[in-house]
């Protein structure tokens, strides 16, 4: 795809400012091209929008954190429904109040349709407590909602 000069300039400025490596650049370029193809928008407009500019100029963030947040933001625009389902699942996981002892995660891109549960115990009592906590959580509506979302029952729109 050929880029207009203002689009190239906007990306160049971002890449230069954050010293973005080749792989991250490729991700960003692909996502930006696909967003603009889908939405008939302009890359320059996306990259100079308030959200990206605020991240770029946030003095509390280092270079790596800025890049991470900008990529998250562009990913959010590129995959709005995927990110929406991920957000819904994350909210349901938080409702379970299991963390940090018990870690509940879903696979990247939600592929596989399964929930991963991790915990560690250093003695028998701790193990019993965590299993009890997990058993209690398994009965909650939030867990059923997570599995429903993983199985394609997406009821809320982004």
């Amino acid at each position, binding site marked *: 795809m050929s880029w207009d000069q203002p689009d190239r300039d906007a990306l160049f400025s971002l890449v230069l400012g954050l010293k973005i490596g080749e792989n991250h650049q490729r991700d960003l370029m692909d996502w930006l091209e*696909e967003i603009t193809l*889908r939405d008939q928008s302009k890359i320059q407009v996306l990259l100079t929008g308030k959200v990206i500019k605020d991240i770029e100029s946030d003095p509390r963030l280092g270079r790596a954190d800025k890049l991470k947040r900008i990529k998250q933001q562009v990913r959010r625009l*590129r995959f*709005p429904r995927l990110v929406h389902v991920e957000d819904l699942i994350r909210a349901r996981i938080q409702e379970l109040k299991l963390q940090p002892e018990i870690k509940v995660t879903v696979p990247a891109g939600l*592929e596989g349709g399964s929930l991963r549960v991790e915990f560690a115990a250093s003695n028998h009592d701790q193990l019993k407590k965590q299993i009890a906590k997990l058993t209690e959580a398994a009965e909650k509506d939030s867990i059923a909602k997570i599995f429903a979302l993983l199985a394609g029952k*997406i009821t809320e729109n982004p």
Partner: protein
Amino acid sequence: MQAFQPEEVIVERGSETTSIYRNLREKLPHVPFKIVDGVANGDSDFSARGFGTAKKKLVLTRHKGEFLKKCPGSDGQVCCNYFVINFASNCPMDCSYCYLQEYLAENPALKVFSNVDDLLIEAAKLLSKHRAFFFRIGTGEITDSLALDPYIGFTREVVPFFAEQPNALLELKTKSDCVDGLLDLDPKDRIVVSWSMNPQRVIDLDEHGTASCAERLRAARRCQEAGYRLGFHFDPMVEYPDWEQDYEEMLEQTFATVDWRRISWLSMGVLRNTPGLKRTMRDRFPSTRLLTGEQVLCPDGKLRYFQPLRVEMYRKMLGWIRRAAPTVKVYLCMESKEVWEQVFGFAPGCEKELGIQLANFGF
């Protein structure tokens, strides 16, 4: 459907005595034919000129390897135990998403293999050696089964052969409406003619040079009336705003046109590509909206719509299919057991199980 009119037919010496050559000569009287001593190894000339350009010349050559192979499927996905016959390579049509753009990138010449007699000898040996095994065999893996048939007459040689085989079902899979050559043959319930189906909107945008949805359905009805079993492959399903309305209408048209009780199987599969194929699509079809779907990389290296989204698509399609055709056999192409479970509530125990089910539904 766009008529096939190659710029030239290149014939490898020795192939000019075959029936395929004679058919080509008769059907393409205004096309120049060039006899050559050998087709270059690796087809570097065609490869350099690009995938699209390679479709403009037809090469008639002998196939040196085996014709019949097990379908490779996709790593870790439920497999349907299918065999493929490669009687040609590449396709005169030009779908934006076609995986051959990557698969045949180094060898893109549009080739037809002239030694059909060798193909039939090989098939006869294999089928007679394994009489206890039932083979489902297709010819549409690296080409379209019927798009070239009006010019080469391939089906007139293979259909009578497979119609007599007690342990095989031949599937001819197409996006064309080139069925005239089939209609006066007797399939004896051993031949399934199947169509890759998409709504007209997808055909217009991304299935270049193929038959329209209505033309495919008319051709399907003619085949059904001539005694053939039918198959339909809703693959690749494409997700876009209002896709539901288009796909539901397409299914209604399908079941209004053909008798679903004589459909052997239906399959569903969403759009899938690899990162490499996506790069090729960007180069060849930069404005295709297929690039903008919410696809993620799956463990088998293919990009698909993220799982909850595609499961939702499959479920909706299945609901519309079941409304019109309650007991027709439906399966998923290149999907994991988890997706099968989420869509159907079960997954085949092994590839043999799905293969046997499909073979049984062939009758």
